[in-house]
């Protein structure tokens, strides 16, 4: 009798899953929140709020490559296991946030994490450890973040989706200048020549073909962000992928849809009408 009961529960459970799946519109992320990541490997355990990392703040001054290759940040939140001790030694955030480094001729960046701190330092802690518990934020803090974003974004070329900023164009016309080299961390190598733009056919008839540009990607990523992990990239056509994979966060979906412009902006990639 007990077994029958258990099996009934399991079957009912499966029926529930089958009937609840799909067809619902997800909530769209606001422009100022797009690309934001909550980092909490050790924060809560140590008694501080998790870190709210804003990609847009960093990508307006740095290439993706600097952090994700030279500094060594993982492409997946909370995978790296960043500790306060690491930051203090000058790894991860501490590579730049050390109280000394300055970029674009600005003020030295505030130091991340320290083992000695007093009341006045609290403000500095909260600059990163700002994510309130249970994923909530104080209203004032949220408004403040939005205001800071707006003042920056309103001077940028507009684009649909994502941050509402056309980052590619902003870099191209010099609105933002990206740093791709950090003293003592990066190594200068002669740049590789880019492959010419090529087309990738669409699977469904009538959908325009993709024009993929290595040139546009290498400005931000060099080679190493994508090859060989995300794309083995030996020969065109070796790897087969579909939009289903991409939406699941594989291949292009590793960046597009999370930080880079979302994949729902079809026409941004599918540009060549057949």
């Amino acid at each position: 009798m007990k077994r029958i009961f258990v099996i009934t529960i399991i079957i009912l459970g499966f029926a529930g899953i089958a009937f609840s799946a799909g067809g619902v519109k997800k909530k769209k992320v606001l422009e100022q929140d797009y690309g934001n990541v909550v980092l909490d490997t050790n924060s809560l355990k140590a008694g501080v709020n998790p870190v709210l990392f804003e990609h847009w703040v960093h990508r307006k001054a740095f290439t993706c490559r600097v952090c994700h290759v030279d500094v060594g940040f993982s492409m997946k939140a909370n995978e790296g296991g960043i500790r306060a001790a690491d930051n203090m030694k000058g790894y991860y955030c501490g590579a730049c946030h050390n109280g000394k480094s300055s970029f674009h001729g600005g003020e030295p960046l505030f130091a991340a994490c320290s083992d000695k701190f007093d009341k006045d330092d609290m403000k500095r802690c909260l600059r990163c450890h700002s994510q309130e518990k249970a994923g909530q934020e104080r209203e004032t803090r949220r408004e403040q973040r939005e205001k800071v974003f707006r003042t920056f974004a309103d001077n940028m070329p507009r684009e649909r989706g994502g941050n509402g900023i056309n980052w590619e164009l902003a870099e191209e016309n010099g609105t933002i200048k990206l740093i791709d080299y950090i003293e003592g961390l990066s190594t200068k190598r002669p740049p590789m020549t880019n492959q010419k733009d090529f087309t990738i056919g669409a699977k469904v008839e009538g959908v325009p073909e993709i024009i993929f540009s290595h040139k546009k990607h290498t400005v931000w990523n060099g080679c190493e962000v994508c090859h060989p992990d995300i794309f083995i990239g030996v020969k065109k056509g070796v790897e087969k992928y579909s939009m289903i994979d991409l939406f699941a966060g594989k291949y292009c979906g590793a960046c597009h849809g999370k930080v880079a412009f979302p994949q729902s902006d079809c026409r941004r990639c599918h540009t060549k009408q057949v």
Partner: protein
Amino acid sequence: MARLLSRRVTAEGATQNKYSSRYRWIRAEKAVLPILLFLQFSRGIPSLMKHLLIPVVLVILVTAEASANFNLPPLPPREEFGNILIDRTSEANGQQPVNFSHWLHRTKFTCRVCHGELDFLMKRNATEITERGNRSGKFCGACHNGKIAFRHNGNCDKCHNGDLGYSNKRFDDFMLKTSVPMTMAGNGVNWSAGISSGALKPQTYLKKKSQDMNFEKELLLEAEMSIIPPAIFPHKAHAAWLDCDNCHPDLFNIKKKGTHFSMAEIMKGNYCGVCHLSVAFPMDECKRCHPGMRE
């Protein structure tokens, strides 16, 4: 069944009662089949297994019941179809809820302008519309700024009036002045034919260009029951109003032969039901999706 029979008969004579006998038959088919199967295959099965099968059959029966219950929401008068009252924080702040008329806005703009560019969500009261936001040019304020449409100051009661039928008077006006093709249910306006006939010329974007993808593929979607003719899905008619990302990949995955969009799910407001229950033509018009269906 009682709920189905008590379904309101609309002014146009869209009678659900006419279909009721057919639906009863479908339901019988669905309910009897599992029992027959059970009896057929239960002979050679040991008694313990038989006990295990009972809950399985029960589950199938329950789900079959649920999916055959065509419980369409009652239709409002045609000039009020698609009208909503937005009250996320209005009443809590001593203001009347906002009346929003979909038909009035879609005479001038496509769905994508508000639901893509301006970030309005597809669910009532879900979008965080604030007065401050509106005044700084977000959400309603993107147009309601005194330049494109009436501004905030001095116009409170044009929106905050709690009256679902506030724009009813303008509906007759619209119908008289424009020669839009008519249809049976919903607003009584065939919006999509309106675009193709040129009677309607809604703006497709404000500042950020639309996707404008020429994708015209028609999909043939087999119905759940063999006696119902398949549904035809035209991409072209939808793309006239929407961008790809209004539907993909949230509402519809792009899987080739993936999920089945059952009527039961659609009735719950999922898949097609996100729009085709409340704003786009309602599902009372079976033939518009299942063209092979008899009257």
